[in-house]
């Protein structure tokens, strides 16, 4: 039933299953870059991340939003304005790799716990969630229209 081995769209899949120390954050806590230390950052390879333009693709943002609403909004609100973190709508200059890594690995920060989503959300889907989260930032330059993308 789980989607653990889905082929990603050109991005390296990060297998974090069976990690012994993965902590997580129910509040789906994607944090400010300097605070966004993944639970096992040493295990996150220097991933090939999408370009800044890819992360502005309108189809990615829409797909990321759909996944965010279904998987993340209960804790974070539909626009990332809930959760025990700074609102996503008040962010600027937010490193997409940090967002990606926290989603993938989860995080425990104090009493706050966010589960790791890597391994059960395909890496390409995680990048689409990143695209949506980035689109909420104050310095978002606007979407690049793409129709019928994938």
């Amino acid at each position, binding site marked *: 039933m789980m989607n653990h081995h889905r082929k990603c769209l050109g991005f390296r899949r990060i297998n974090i299953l069976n990690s012994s120390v993965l902590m997580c954050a129910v*509040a789906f806590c994607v944090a400010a870059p300097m605070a966004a230390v993944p639970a096992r950052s040493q295990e996150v390879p220097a991933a090939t991340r999408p370009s800044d333009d890819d992360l502005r693709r309108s189809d990615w943002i829409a797909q990321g939003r759909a996944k965010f609403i*279904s998987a993340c909004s209960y804790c974070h609100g539909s626009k990332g304005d809930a*959760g025990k973190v700074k609102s996503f709508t008040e962010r600027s200059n937010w490193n997409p790799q940090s967002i990606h890594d926290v989603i993938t690995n989860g995080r425990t920060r104090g*009493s706050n716990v966010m589960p790791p*989503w890597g*391994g059960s959300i395909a890496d390409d889907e995680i990048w689409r969630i990143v695209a949506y989260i980035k689109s909420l930032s104050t310095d978002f330059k606007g979407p690049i229209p793409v129709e019928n993308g994938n």
Partner: protein
Amino acid sequence: MKRPIRAVAGLMLGAFAMSAFATGASAQDANGNWTEYNGDYRSWRYSPLDKVNKSNIGKLKVAWIHQPGDITSGIQVTPLVIDGIMYYIAANNRVYAVDAATGTQIWEYIPELDADHMKSIFAAYNRGVAIADGKVLLGTSDGRMIAIDQKTGKEGWQVRLTQPAECHGCNFTSPPTIANGIAIIGKTGGDLAQRGQIYGVNIADGKLLWTFEVLKDDPASWPADQIATGGGGAWMPGVFDPKTQLYYVGTSNPAPDFRASQRRGDNLYTSSIVALDPKTGKVVWHHQEVPNDAWDFDAQNEIVSIQHEGKDLIFHLNKGGFVTVLDKKDGSVVNVWQFSENVNWVDKIDPKTGKIGTRNEPTDAEKKIFCPSALGARSMNAGSYSPKTKLWYTNGFELCNSAQTVETQISKLAFSQPYYATSEFGFDAPPGKKASAYLKAFDPLTGKMAWRVDYKNPGLGWVLATAGGLVFNGDLEGYVHAYDDESGKELWKFQTGSGIRAGIVSYMADGKQYIVVPSGMGSLFPGFASSVFTDFKTIRGGAAVIAFTVE
């Protein structure tokens, strides 16, 4: 090392306690112990102790503090106290026994949990242990029940009950309920694409005796293609009544939470009060509060038993904002009254039958707002009933959520992803109003309110009322308050350092009455509600058990 005088006191208390157990009496029969999660089978969370009272509450001071050292998800426990020893569970299922008079640690137990347990959205936290036959029993974050020795803390038997890898992380977050040598526990998972169960385990050897399928295998109740992923379960403890010899528990919501249209039928036995035979796990009677639930309205809250005009009654608050009063012998409806100030998911509930009126449920077609929210009229933190005032003291809040549904492929759910089937979701203030919170005192049979205290944010701690005429309640900001049980006037407060998300209890040790307050905010609720109650964004976590007494 105990002092001699304490050993004597402990023996005396032990004798009282043994006597109480032998007669089927309870923590609330003035022996000074707190032996069950909700006090006893009546779920009053009331202490008959009165050494701390309205006249001396001003002298209530901290006696000791014990910290478990792990604040993951805060501390959510209701401690137990037997024979001068306190037992409590903290983050990641750490269990402690401490001297209840001094806070000196006697033993600790730290289980080795499967690493994958942290992938569950219900990871790390736990609300209590149960004690029976010399064993401390816990349900674990990775789906087991474990028995540890009450005297030494050494691990005894263990039994795996759930398979978290197959059920999106379903596990245990609450203590078992003890019923004549059987430990009964339900698993999490009303929000998961799995099938909920309740288990009966033999306390002597850990053998699984029976499994109750919360989702009734009945095509009239469930579409055949929905039952395997229909949610359910029972994530809060029930109660065992030694008089009726029945186990009563409130069950979880069905899944997908908000898209009831794909599972038409009443979806028994979700969102229900069920009375089970603890020997077999068979249903004796049930009352479903929300048929074909479309709003995430679990029935997890405390089941409170009282006597009225010669009848044994139950009253119970559903997340949907109504209190149902039932005849305990057969589950027939005696009354239903509206608890929440803002309700729009149904136009009415018949107070004579409990039948719900016209439904307003989420649809695929449009985003709508529903009140109360999926967080309920109140969180799972129980209120307290005082036989002295005949009032029920409980927190509550006014909060709504918006939702629009969408068909959701189970194969595309991530491991930690609840099965909500929503395309839009968010928490909101009631339309045209501000979100609000309160502590209220009610006549539990009629809903007549005696007094209220307004809170800035939802109170998430479990309430304690005492024979000393006091009502203790903790708040988000970290204060524990003591109120006059008749007027609601605040008589005392103390800053504990973190928000309170746990059960306040009282007990006797070395001749003194103690009030104990576990302090340390955590759990899922603060994140959920923070878009509306924004103070939740900045609260500090923590974990400390703080005992108070009057010198």
